[in-house]
């Protein structure tokens, strides 16, 4: 079972982290807002994309098969992985068949989800993260802190230290110098790697294209230089037509990084053509289910699969904005993580995830495909079996019993307040009561008025008689 609450203090009271979170989230939001403001028909794009996604999900089997057929007709191999283990086994098998020793990887959250790096390492294969942020957290032996910008919590001093240690040369703090060092170190890896693994941002069914967006060029190199390329793709990533692509690209890049478009957009769909002078001879598309088909079967929560992994909801979430990604202790974090993880792992594995939210709804407003995350959170809260929240369940039953009957409510309120007043002094509770104690740890309690409103005013006649204020 994964809990969030035990480690929040560690992140909340890290002054440097809080400063970085504050400025990074503010910058990300501003960039996104500016980029979106340029698009006059942003709402229209959102509605279009949502409709496309919901339609596609209802016909997912057909679209995926169309995609697979196209890839196969070009000589690519398609593997349908039901579980994370199946996907990892296939990749490891392929690596073994080619006696691969080094694998270059570009950023893929799905790769994190299925644990591909661990699987490769166990098989004696070295997976090298080539996205600069992922490279940094890999060297630090940490998981990503954010699904789009994995290392934003690291200072240049942190990076200088870790690079000096691992790249074997003393390096200063200048980001230019550090980036140049990473470029040099990774270039060798690209040119020598036996296998390249990338993710897939979007897949187009009718034309058979897989789309990989990036800024650094590492995905381009990962899918061009090694002799074998494996693309890992969640089954929900397919869109029906090439004509839909410009809309999704626009929504994705502006929401994720506030860019009109990323430096590189790769369209791939098979191994190299016979006439090409370079490119991978072997291409594999691994379609990963890993619980998505189960989410699909639940019509009320199916829209979770519309997510295009832009990360905007993380940037706007007041909870993520205070605790950061590691506090969730799961691959997917923030609002999308809160609704996806219980559905992928089972609600009892991550019982706190749906509750780590104030239901402020900022995520729903910002989601480019209009996923109603707050509604999904409420559904998940409802579905958590009571045995995982016995205390809450009992408290709620008592509360309902008290509040459902106006007379009972008035009576218990009167006696309860008399009792409470004995321990209550000007905003402080002398008695450490469980719920109120939690409130009081960081805030003052409100004063307890002498009378409730109804005690004062329940004799109001309609024409305005009765007690004054």
């Amino acid at each position, binding site marked *: 079972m994964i809990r*969030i*609450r035990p480690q*929040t*203090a560690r992140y*909340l009271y890290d002054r440097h982290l*809080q400063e970085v979170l504050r400025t990074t989230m503010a910058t990300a939001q501003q960039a996104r807002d500016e980029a979106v403001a340029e698009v006059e028909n942003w709402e229209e794009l959102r509605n279009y994309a949502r409709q496309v996604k919901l339609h596609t999900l209802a016909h997912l089997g057909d679209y995926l098969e169309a995609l697979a057929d196209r890839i196969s007709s070009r000589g690519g191999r398609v593997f349908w992985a039901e579980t994370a283990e199946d996907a990892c086994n296939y990749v490891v098998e392929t690596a073994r068949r080619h006696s691969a020793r080094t694998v270059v990887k570009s950023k893929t959250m799905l790769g994190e989800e299925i644990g591909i790096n661990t699987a490769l390492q166990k098989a004696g294969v070295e997976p090298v993260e080539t996205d600069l942020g992922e490279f940094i957290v890999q060297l630090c032996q940490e998981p990503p802190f954010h699904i789009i910008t994995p290392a934003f919590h690291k200072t240049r001093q942190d990076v200088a230290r870790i690079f000096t240690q691992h790249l074997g040369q003393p390096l200063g703090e200048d980001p230019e110098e550090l980036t140049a060092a990473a470029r040099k170190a990774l270039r060798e890896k690209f040119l020598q790697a036996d296998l390249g693994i990338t993710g897939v941002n979007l897949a187009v069914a009718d034309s058979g294209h897989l789309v990989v967006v990036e800024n650094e060029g590492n995905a381009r190199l990962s899918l061009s230089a090694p002799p074998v390329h494996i693309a890992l793709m969640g089954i929900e990533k397919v869109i029906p037509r090439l004509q839909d692509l410009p809309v999704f690209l626009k929504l994705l890049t502006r929401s994720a990084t506030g860019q009109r478009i990323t430096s590189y957009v790769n369209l791939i769909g098979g191994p190299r053509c016979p006439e090409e002078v370079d490119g991978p001879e072997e291409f594999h598309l691994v379609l990963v289910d890993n619980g998505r088909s189960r989410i699909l079967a639940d019509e009320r929560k199916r829209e979770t699969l519309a997510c295009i992994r832009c990360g905007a909801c993380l940037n706007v979430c*007041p*909870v993520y*904005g*205070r*605790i950061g990604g590691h506090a969730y202790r799961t691959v997917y974090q923030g609002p999308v993580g809160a609704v996806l993880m219980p559905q992928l792992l089972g609600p009892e594995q991550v019982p706190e995830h*749906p*509750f*780590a*939210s*104030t*239901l*402020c*709804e*900022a995520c*729903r*407003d910002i989601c480019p495909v209009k996923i109603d995350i707050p509604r999904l959170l*409420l559904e*998940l*809260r*409802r*579905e*958590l079996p009571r045995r995982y929240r016995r205390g*809450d*369940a009992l408290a*709620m*039953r008592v*509360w*309902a019993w008290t*509040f*459902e*009957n*106006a007379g009972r409510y*008035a009576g218990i*309120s009167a006696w309860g307040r008399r009792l409470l007043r004995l321990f209550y002094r000007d*905003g402080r509770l002398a008695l450490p009561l469980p*719920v109120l104690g*939690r*409130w009081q*740890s*960081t*805030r*003052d309690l*409100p004063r307890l*008025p002498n009378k*409730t*409103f*109804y005690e004062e*005013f*329940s004799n*109001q006649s*309609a*024409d*305005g008689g009765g007690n004054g*204020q």
Partner: protein
Amino acid sequence: MRVGLFVTCLVDQLFPRVGARTLQLLRLVGLEVVVDPRGVCCGQPAFNTGFTAEARRVARGLLDCWDDCDAVVAPSGSCVAMIRHHLLELFEDDPALKDTARSLAERTWELSDFLVNRLGITDVGARFSHVVTYHDSCHTLRELRIEKEPRLLLQEVRDLELVEMNDGNACCGFGGTFAVKFPDISSAIGNEKVRSIKATGAQFVVGGDVSCLMHIGGLLQRAALPIRPLHLAEVLTESS
């Protein structure tokens, strides 16, 4: 026009003055106001925590109230959002209560929305010679889409200076049971809001939801800051 006043359970228990001022305000604009103590709670605390059965039990009480009123007004955006958007959901399988729930949902208004959009009033003759800032509660902002109404009302308050805070749309961190499930995070979010409030130089932070104001007020007090939270109804009934 006859309106029912749904003060909400939090106002009843902890901020009865807000209820009193709302009552005063509605009378001031010439309405007959019905106060019905059977209107205890909309059930939101249970609903938002995933306990729909308990929410239904409690919300049931509202269905007995105000059936002879043209409208029901509440000084709370989150409770009104609950009634408007979720009450029917709770009773849609109950043929006897479904229509009452729908009727109530259609007649219930948040205070500022009611004054400005239903009655067409922005000037209630108030005077409040202080600098204030305004906090929009998330449900009011994002569920009810009410943002300009409180400001139109405050603009007409004589001698009042309204200073908007940076990141005004940010959540205060209360979040219902979130406040006691994740108190550290709740307060950390709230302290960001307190910083924004402080930076405006305002003497008062005004809002439309006592839940937010209670949380912000608790943080202001803990930080020993002299800024006081006030509900919109309290400002609109000031005349000194």
